[in-house]
């Protein structure tokens, strides 16, 4: 079936999907985010079944199905870069500025690394194994961005750090 339709005077119409929304942070998530926001403390949960400290925390261990409520442990704020990529494209959802280093950071005392942005150093100088620490946002926020970014513990070849984001 070969169609060669006449497309004179045909056009496309611009549209947009944008829907303001609210999400329940959960009982475990609320506690985690409040501790970040108000106390600058990073909390994980420890599964008695598999002895794993999970960050971000959650209500149930996905390996053992154990109930993880009230198994809080404090982790970080320092940790180790386990893996990273350098995001070099700008887009609505990508925090400025780019290049943006997104790293899997295993906080001291945690078993599962957390993805966060790494600043305060030249993106080309980031290496696996780098020791980093959390830099908390000056103003209150309601997501993981209570930690604005991570920075190297020891001075590194410098570059502009990430600009703080709007809450």
């Amino acid at each position, binding site marked *: *079936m070969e*169609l060669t*339709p006449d*497309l004179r005077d*045909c056009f*496309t119409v611009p*549209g947009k*999907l944008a829907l303001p*929304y609210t*999400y329940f*942070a959960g009982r475990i*998530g609320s506690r985690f*985010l409040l501790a970040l926001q108000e106390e600058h403390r990073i909390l994980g949960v420890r599964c008695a079944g598999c002895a794993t400290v*999970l*960050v*971000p925390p959650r209500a149930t261990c*996905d390996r053992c199905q154990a109930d993880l409520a009230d198994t809080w442990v404090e982790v970080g704020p320092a940790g180790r870069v386990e*893996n*990273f*990529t*350098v*995001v*070099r*494209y700008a*887009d*609505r*959802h*990508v*925090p400025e500025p780019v290049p*943006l280093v*997104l790293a*899997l950071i*295993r906080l001291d005392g945690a078993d*599962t*690394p*957390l*993805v*966060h*942005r790494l600043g305060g150093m030249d993106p080309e100088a980031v290496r696996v194994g780098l020791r980093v620490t959390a830099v908390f946002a000056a103003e209150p926020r309601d*997501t*993981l*961005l209570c930690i604005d970014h991570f920075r190297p513990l020891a001075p590194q070849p410098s570059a502009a750090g990430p600009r703080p984001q709007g809450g």
Partner: protein
Amino acid sequence: MARRVGICAVAQTTWERDKWSQRFQGMALEVLEDLLARTGLTFSEDGGIGMSISVSDDIFDARTISDNAMTDVLGAHMGCEEKVAQEGLQALYYGLAAIRSGHVDVVLVLGHCKESQPASRNQVTHMAFDPFYTRPVGLDFTAAAGLQAQAYAARAGVGDRHLAQVVVRARQLATRNLKITGLPVVTAAEVLASPLLADPLRELHAYPVSDGAVGLILAAEERAREITDRPVWIAGVGNCMDSFFLGDRDLASNFPLRQAAARAYRRAGIDHPQNAFDVVELSDQYAYQQPMWMEGLGLVPAGGGGAWIDAGGPEAARVNLSGGMLAGNPLILGGLVRAAEAALQLRGEAGDHQVPGARRALAHGVMGPAGQFHTVAVLERD
């Protein structure tokens, strides 16, 4: 014993960067009419298509309940219509289950997507992340793939040069696939010089944005033999989903793909997958995934991806002779197009990229960030 299920016909549109002058219903109708013409089937309750399964994505379609706009095309008025909002190989699996369970004898599977519609594919995949922990830091599937490629490449000895080879080959093969249009061949130097997206991923390592639709007719064995003289049997399917948080996973381990493959091989009675397939169609959304998924499928030794490319493995193992996803299929249709291409090979209808006498093929699909969810299907002919 459960009934065998056969793929009786395959149809697809061309895959293009921007089918601006076609709505998704139009693309799907083109495929449906092709399938009906090939099989002589109707939607009659007396021996016709008993169930229609569509594959689409609400955000790519920019409307909720995206199958709602498809009822007419699917022949679903007063009938059985289902939607798979997942990578399309799940629809084949679903149709297989519907027939084997005895609910229906003939199933239509029809997937569509216009990736050109959203301004940014990364903005769409960003929405797959949770709003508290992973969206705020800017994750999308490209960034997640960058993290996985970084973890995998060193472990498997896969460098920039290997990835360039994979892309050059895919673009070359795409020129032999009549359903791929408007995709230029590239040189290794062009790939090596293309801008980095998320280290070590480059622009030319990523599957091109594309629009199109693909469909299959599935039928129980006795009906399949009436519909076609060359049915392609679904010998085994397996899938597996890994954890949600990237930090909970070993990104270079291929854990979910190894599980999915083991399930598919067991169901197909395959003990030694290394030499079991005449054709392999896998979903390589990014160049590093071609060697990585081959390792996960057990077709290349673990950690041997770089050496495999050096030794001409992709050609020898007849991997993605269609061009693969690197030649351009939408994210949610990758595995379904792979199954369609594998079925064409087994039916002897693969045109310029036909493998003579192909008897058994593997089709693979993947969805989620950094290969979270894999599906493997083993297809055979008589």
